[in-house]
């Protein structure tokens, strides 16, 4: 081998290693592996994987309203994902996103169903109520950790259940129960965060929209609301607070090493409380936006969790705990869940296969640290070979 080709090979190997070292690569490989496992399962069960994946993608992209629904469904899990990611960056494990989400939804209903102010006042009030509810639940967890050192995983799991039962209590209470149903009364129409709720179903609105068929499909047939836009803003905000502010610097410092942060004179207890309150506020916001933005604009008796918070976990994991990454991970996750419904109808495969696929992707993302190790191994081999040649 000449020296030149050796040099080119080494450069090429270097590039492969650089690519393998980038976090996004591991995520993409994990997603590909997830699809691979699902394809194998589908084939083993006698379903055509190609047709199944085609149905999955058609279920997300083939109609404007599907795209619209995917975005609507992705918004709350993007937010809960950001919450988990935010807490993770500050060294906390926010498994309480589920309960904080419920707290947000409950508080939004508590305020929105009884209060009926003009829209510009009502919407902020209802949304703030939800944010405050979530933040309070997060703060309880944070305070218990800061003051008594009780692990946040324990308290937030307990609070998840507390919130579930609080939700059921509110639904059953005389003031909020909708007769002969398992739901609460809905929030007043003045709190709807649906985009153009009144205009799009009015005669004039329908007339105008019919001339633009895709917009008609996108707007009229779905509950398009502001949640996704808010989620993007929150992602940017979370990124800014974490990486561009003094507060974020301190929060992350506590996350890296409590002792070092304390030694450096940072108020560790206060920072834990603040971090959990912020992490709690975000799912609270998601809960409030779902109540105000999506039919039936109310809460219902829950037998188990709706998994908004736990799906947020998977989203944060896929996103590598990057708030901005949560936007894309949330869209991917929302798309798979929503598009997955089409697979059963189109090819007859059970929707469980989609769940397995999502599980596999999360599993491989969790294993993602293996990928840089592989890169290191390749590097070492290349070095050895180089040494031998020299």
């Amino acid at each position: 081998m000449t020296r030149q080709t050796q040099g080119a090979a080494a450069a090429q190997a270097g590039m492969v290693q650089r690519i393998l070292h980038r976090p996004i690569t591991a995520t993409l490989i994990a997603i590909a592996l997830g699809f691979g496992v699902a394809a194998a399962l589908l084939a083993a069960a006698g379903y055509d994987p190609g047709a199944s994946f085609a149905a999955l993608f058609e279920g997300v992209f083939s109609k404007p309203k599907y795209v619209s629904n995917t975005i609507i469904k992705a918004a709350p899990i993007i937010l809960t994902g950001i919450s988990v990611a935010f807490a993770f960056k500050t060294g906390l494990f926010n498994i309480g996103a589920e309960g904080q989400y419920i707290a947000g939804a409950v508080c939004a209903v508590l305020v929105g169903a009884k209060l009926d102010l003009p829209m510009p006042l009502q919407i902020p009030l209802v949304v703030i109520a939800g944010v405050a509810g979530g933040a309070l639940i997060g703060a309880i967890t944070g305070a218990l950790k800061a003051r008594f050192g009780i692990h946040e995983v324990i308290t937030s799991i307990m609070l998840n259940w507390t919130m579930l039962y609080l939700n059921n209590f509110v639904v059953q209470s005389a003031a909020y129960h909708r007769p002969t149903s398992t739901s609460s009364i809905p929030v007043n129409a003045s709190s709807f965060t649906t985009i153009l709720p009144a205009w799009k179903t009015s005669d004039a609105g329908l007339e105008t929209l019919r001339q633009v068929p895709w917009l008609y499909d996108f707007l009229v047939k779905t509950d398009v609301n502001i949640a996704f836009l808010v989620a993007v803003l929150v992602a940017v905000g979370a990124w800014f607070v974490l990486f561009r502010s003094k507060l974020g610097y301190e929060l992350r410092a506590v996350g890296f090493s409590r002792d070092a942060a304390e030694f450096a004179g940072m108020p560790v207890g206060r920072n834990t409380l603040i971090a959990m309150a912020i992490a709690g506020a975000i799912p609270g916001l998601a809960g409030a936006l779902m109540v105000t933005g999506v039919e039936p604009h109310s809460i219902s008796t829950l037998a188990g969790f709706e998994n908004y918070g736990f799906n947020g976990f998977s989203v944060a994991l896929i996103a590598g705990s990057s708030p901005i990454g949560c936007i894309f991970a949330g869209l991917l996750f929302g798309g798979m869940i929503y598009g997955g419904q089409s697979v059963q109808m189109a090819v007859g495969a059970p929707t469980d296969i989609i769940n397995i696929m999502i599980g596999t992707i999360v599993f491989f993302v969790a294993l993602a640290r293996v990928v840089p190790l592989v890169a290191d191994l390749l590097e070492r081999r290349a070095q050895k070979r180089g040494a031998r040649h020299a």
Partner: protein
Amino acid sequence: MEPPRGQGLVHGHAKERISIKKTRFASLASVAAAGALALALAGCGSGGSSTTTSDGSASANGSSSYQVSMVTDMGGVNDQSFNQLTWEGLQELEKETGIKVGYTESKQESDYATNVDKAVDQGSNLVWGIGFAMDSAIQTAAKQNPDVNFAIIDNAYDESDLTDNLTGVTFRTQEPSFVVGYIAAMTSETGKVGFVGGMQNDIIGTFEWGYRAGVAYANKKAGKNVEVTTQYLETFTDAAKGKAAGQKLYSDGCDVVFQAAGNAGNGVIETAQDAGKYVIGVDKDQYSQAPDNILSSALKRVDKAVIEISKQASEGEDIGGKNVELGMSDDAAGISEHHEHMSDEVYQAAQDLIEQIKDGTLTPPSTEDAYNTFVAGL
């Protein structure tokens, strides 16, 4: 300096994550197992359908191009209860007639409307909503898609809300409740039996008044004097409340309790096991949950109902614009086959009652007023 520390962070939490994820993975594993099972079932189903279609027997009435789909409520298609029963019914329908069937699963309440919408888009001719929680989602979809039939389990719509393509399906649950009431009264040794209801409404009322009428019937015909005590939980989900209500009834001297309270009713079954008393199951045969304590079960055959009505619709019959009530005469209600905890005479008498209900000589009451009239006429 950041990356290695960041990794340390991930490391430190990995253990916790594993412990928390464990439950999720356990459920994933069970989902996988159930999935494999469902695959096997679905495999059989589609195999069956292709043969019927090639025979030409099914395509004769055009049902091979007919498509029925269901949208589950939040329980999902493997809920061990009526969603699963409905899906099994639809799979049987596919095997029998070659009608194409499918489902979409709702994980969250906000999924109802979008899942129904998707079922319509996939070319379904009839869409089933499972459970009265979906009443408004189904009703809205019926208004928006006049060419597609919609039906819902466990919900009757107001006359004014019924569009031509909308069917509400309810069950005459007072019929099996009447029969188990009779069995309870005939089996009780203390002369006291209990009833636990999930929520005080019209649907659960049919269970209570049917049951009470069954007891009254036994009192009259067999010269007994059995009393009924009633407890309402105001929940279908909280098993702890069911347990508390069960404890109260058993300690008050009841030795048979009929529970119609969904998941909360499982609490009553647990108490019956602890107290060594009898309990009566509801909706599906709950015998396997407590073989030593389940006296009988009042069955609601959701699967028979979806098969029957879907068949009618596929044959071009007009099913829309009305509420349908199904009962024993439609084989959509009954009692458990397990009867080792009661005497053969009682079981035989119960079978006779079922026959009488089927041929219409006996009409169990479903409301308090009807109950009073019924008792007065005994």
